[in-house]
C-alpha cells in the first residue's frame, strides 16, 4: 500500500496505530496450528461457491417434468429444486465444478475441524483462559455438521430425501416434545406441503452461515486478544509468544495456505465426482435405494442407528422412548456433552489445575487426558465404522449379523483397550523424556589412577518413572 493510501485512511479512520501494532503481531509457527486455518479457508470457499450456486438453485418442491439433456430422467416428474440442480450439473457453464467444489469443501471443512479439535484436545489448548473459545469451537463443529446436512438435503434427490425421513424419525423420537417438534419443523407430517424446503434453504444459506461467521469472528478475536498458545522450546515461556511477525512472513504464509486449500478443493471439484444427484433420481417417500448413507460426518449416527438393538422404553403398549432416540439423540448428546464439559471435567477429575496455561502439553505430558481422549474418540470411531458394515460384508464376506454382534462388543472393548494402551504409551514416552538413560545397559569406563582404563558393568539405571 503506498503512503497516500495509508494517509487517506489514517486521517479518516485512525488506522496507522492499529496497523503498526497488527503488523508486528507474532504468530507461533508450529504446523499443527494451521489446521484451524484450513477449516477457515474451506469455509470461505463454501461461501464463494455457495453464492454461485444460490444464483441458480430454486428452493421449491413444486413439481416439474424434466426435459433437460440427461436422458435417463427425461419425462420424469421431479421437484423444481432437483431440476435446478440438474441444470447446474449439466447446463450451467462451470456449474458442476462449483457444485462439486462446494460439496468437497463441506466434507473437507469437517475433516479440518476434526483434526483441529484433536490437536486442541491432546495439547490441552482448551485450558484456562481459553475455555470460552473452546466452547465456541465445539459449537461451530455442531453447526457445521447441521449445515452440511441441510445443504445436501436441499437437492431433494432420493439419497438425501431418505436421510431427511430419518431425521424426521429421530426428531419424533424425542420424549414428550418430539412429535410436536417434528411436526412444527415440517409444517405437518413428513414430507409435508413443501414448506420444509423454505426452512432448509433459509437455514442453510443465511441463518447458519451468519451464526458461523459471527462465531468465527469471535473465535479469531479471542485468539488475538489472548495470543496463541505455543509448545515449550528454547525461549518460550508462559509470558511470551515467539514466532513469525504478521508481516511479511505470516501474511504470506496464510495467503499461501488459503490458495492451496482452495486449489485442493477445486482440484477435487473437477476431478473426483461427488454426490452425483442425477444417478440417485428424485426423492419419493415410497422409494428407496440399498446402500444409502449420509455424508461422512454423519456416519457415526447411521452406525448407531444400525447397531442399536430393537430397544424401546414402553409401559404396557404406550411408547415412552422410541428406538431411534438412543442412537439419534442420546448418543450425539453424550458426545457433545463430554466435548463441551471437558475443560471442567478434566480440571475436576484429572488435573485439579486452576492455573492459566499458554504453554501446550504434548500428549505424553498428560497421560490421563491422552488415554481418556483416545478412548473417547475410538468409541465414536467404532460406532462410525459399524455404519459401513454392509459394504464391509460385500468386500469381505463376513456376515452382516455377525458384524453387528462384533461391533456391539467392540463398542465396549475397543475404548477400554485404547485407554490402557494410549495411557501406557504416553507414560512410557514421558518417562523416557525424564530419564533418558532409563533402561540403558552397557559398561562404565573409568580412568584408573595408574592411567589405564577399567570397564565396570553399568549400574542398573532402570527405574520406574
Amino acid at each position: 500500500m503506498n503512503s497516500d493510501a495509508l494517509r487517506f485512511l489514517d486521517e479518516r479512520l485512525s488506522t496507522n496505530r492499529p496497523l503498526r501494532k497488527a503488523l508486528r503481531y507474532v504468530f507461533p509457527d508450529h504446523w499443527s496450528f494451521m489446521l484451524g486455518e484450513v477449516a477457515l479457508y474451506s469455509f470461505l470457499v463454501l461461501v464463494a461457491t455457495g453464492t454461485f450456486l444460490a444464483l441458480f438453485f430454486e428452493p421449491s418442491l413444486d413439481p416439474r417434468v424434466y426435459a433437460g439433456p440427461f436422458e435417463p430422467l427425461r419425462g420424469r416428474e421431479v421437484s423444481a429444486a432437483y431440476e435446478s440442480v440438474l441444470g447446474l450439473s449439466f447446463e450451467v457453464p462451470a456449474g458442476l465444478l462449483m457444485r462439486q467444489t462446494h460439496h468437497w469443501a463441506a466434507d473437507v471443512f469437517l475433516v479440518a475441524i476434526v483434526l483441529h479439535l484433536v490437536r486442541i484436545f491432546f495439547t490441552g489448548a482448551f485450558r484456562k483462559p481459553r475455555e470460552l473459545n473452546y466452547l465456541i469451537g465445539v459449537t461451530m463443529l455442531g453447526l457445521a455438521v447441521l449445515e452440511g446436512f441441510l445443504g445436501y438435503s436441499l437437492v431433494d434427490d432420493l439419497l438425501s430425501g431418505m436421510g431427511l425421513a430419518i431425521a424426521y424419525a429421530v426428531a419424533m423420537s424425542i420424549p414428550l416434545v418430539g412429535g410436536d417438534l417434528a411436526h412444527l419443523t415440517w409444517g405437518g407430517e413428513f414430507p409435508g406441503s413443501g414448506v420444509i424446503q423454505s426452512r432448509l434453504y433459509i437455514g442453510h444459506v443465511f441463518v447458519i452461515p451468519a451464526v458461523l461467521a459471527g462465531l468465527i469472528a469471535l473465535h479469531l478475536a479471542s485468539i488475538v486478544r489472548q495470543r496463541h498458545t505455543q509448545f515449550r522450546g528454547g525461549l518460550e515461556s508462559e509470558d511470551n509468544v515467539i514466532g513469525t511477525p504478521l508481516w511479511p512472513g505470516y501474511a504470506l504464509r496464510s495467503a499461501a495456505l488459503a490458495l492451496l486449500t482452495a486449489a485442493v478443493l477445486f482440484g477435487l471439484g473437477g476431478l473426483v465426482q461427488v454426490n452425483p444427484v442425477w444417478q440417485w433420481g428424485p426423492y419419493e417417500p415410497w422409494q428407496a435405494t440399498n446402500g444409502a448413507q449420509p455424508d461422512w460426518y454423519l456416519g457415526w449416527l447411521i452406525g448407531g442407528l444400525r447397531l442399536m438393538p430393537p430397544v424401546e422404553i414402553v409401559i404396557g403398549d404406550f411408547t415412552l422412548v422410541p428406538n431411534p432416540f438412543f442412537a439419534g439423540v442420546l448418543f450425539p448428546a453424550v458426545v457433545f456433552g463430554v466435548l463441551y464439559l471437558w475443560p471442567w471435567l478434566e480440571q475436576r477429575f484429572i488435573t485439579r489445575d486452576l492455573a492459566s496455561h499458554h504453554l501446550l502439553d504434548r500428549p505424553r505430558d498428560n497421560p490421563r487426558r491422552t488415554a481418556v481422549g483416545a478412548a473417547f474418540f475410538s468409541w465414536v470411531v467404532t460406532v462410525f465404522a459399524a455404519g459401513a458394515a454392509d459394504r464391509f460384508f460385500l468386500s469381505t464376506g463376513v456376515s452382516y449379523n455377525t458384524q453387528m454382534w462384533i461391533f456391539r462388543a467392540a463398542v465396549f472393548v475397543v475404548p477400554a483397550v485404547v485407554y490402557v494402551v494410549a495411557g501406557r504409551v504416553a507414560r512410557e514416552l514421558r518417562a523416557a523424556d525424564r530419564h533418558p538413560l532409563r533402561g540403558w545397559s552397557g559398561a562404565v569406563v573409568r580412568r584408573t589412577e595408574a592411567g589405564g582404563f577399567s570397564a565396570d558393568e553399568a549400574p542398573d539405571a532402570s527405574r520406574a518413572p
Partner: protein
Amino acid sequence: MSRVGRALLLVLLFWRGLRAPRPPGPEPAVEEGGPEEGRPFRREVGAQRRDELLVAGLLLASAAASAAFIALLFADADPRLLGLSLALAVGLLGAALGLASRRLVPREEAIEQRPRLAHPEALPPVRARLGSVGQGVSRRGLLGAAGVAAGTALAAAVAVPVTALGPAVGESIAQTPWRRGRRLVGENGKPLRAGDIPAGSFVTAFPEGADKRELGSAVVVVREDPERLALPPERQDWAPLGIVAYSKICTHAGCALAMYRQPLYEPTSDQPGIACPCHYSVFDPRTGGTVLAGPAARSLPQLPLRLGPGGELRAGGGFSGPIGPSWWGVRKT
C-alpha cells in the same frame, strides 16, 4: 539499490526508529495499556536468485493457468479440465506465495510479551459504577420483580410465534387417505385387481385419488399362501386369497420398505420378509407385520383388504395402527 534492498532498508529504519535495539530475551513488564512491540531477534534476509526465479515462474504459470481456465470456460469444456485449470491457477499462486514466505521475504523470528489478561484492580470501580444504577431508588425489590416479570413474559411472547410453524402431532398421524372401500391403484394410477398381485412378487399401491406422497398412502401388497398365513384373530378376513397389504413406511425411521425377501426354496434359505434398506429391519407378512429382525420395535401396520365385485382390490378400513416412525405416546399394536 534493488527494490528488495530498498524495502529492507525501510523496514530496518522503521524498526530502529521506534526504539533502540535491545538484546534478545524476555521483555520487561509492559506498562498498563501501552503498545506491545514484537521485535525480530532472528532475521534472515536475502533471497537466492534461483528462488526468485522460481517464484516468478510460479506466478507466471499461475497466470497461464488462469488464462486457460477462462478460455476453457468459454469453450464449454469438461468439468475435469475446468477444475484442473482453476486448481492449478490457484495452487501455483499459493505455491509462489508459500515459497516467497519461506525463501524470499525476510524470515524473522520475533518475541512478544503476552498481555496480562486479568486486571483485578479495575474491578471495584467497575462494580461501583454498575451498582450506581440503584442509587436513590427505594423500591428495589418491587422494581426487580416487575422487571423479571416483564423480561420473561416478553421472551415468551417472542418465542410463541414459533408454534405457528406447524400443527401439534395430535391425531394427524392416525389420519391417512385410506378409507373403507377405497380402491388400490398402482404407481401408474390404474386400479389393481387380485390377478395383478402375483405370488412371489411385490406391488406398491396407493389409495385411488390420494396424494401419493403422503406418508400414509403407500402400501406394499404381496400374495402369500393362505395356508401359511398366521394373522392375528381379528384380522382373519383381511387377506382375500392370501393377498396382504402393509404400510410401506418402516416403523423404525421412516424409510420406504423397498426390499421384499421372497425365497425360491424356503427350506434352504430364509422365510419371506418385507425389509428396509436403511437399517435392515425385517417384517413378517404372514403374521401381521411382526418384527423379525433389525432395530424396528413396532409391528408394521396392516391394511385390511377386500375383493370388490369386479375382483378389484379395495381397502377394508384404516390401518391396524399408526404408520411411520414412533413417537412419545404411540401405542404398540
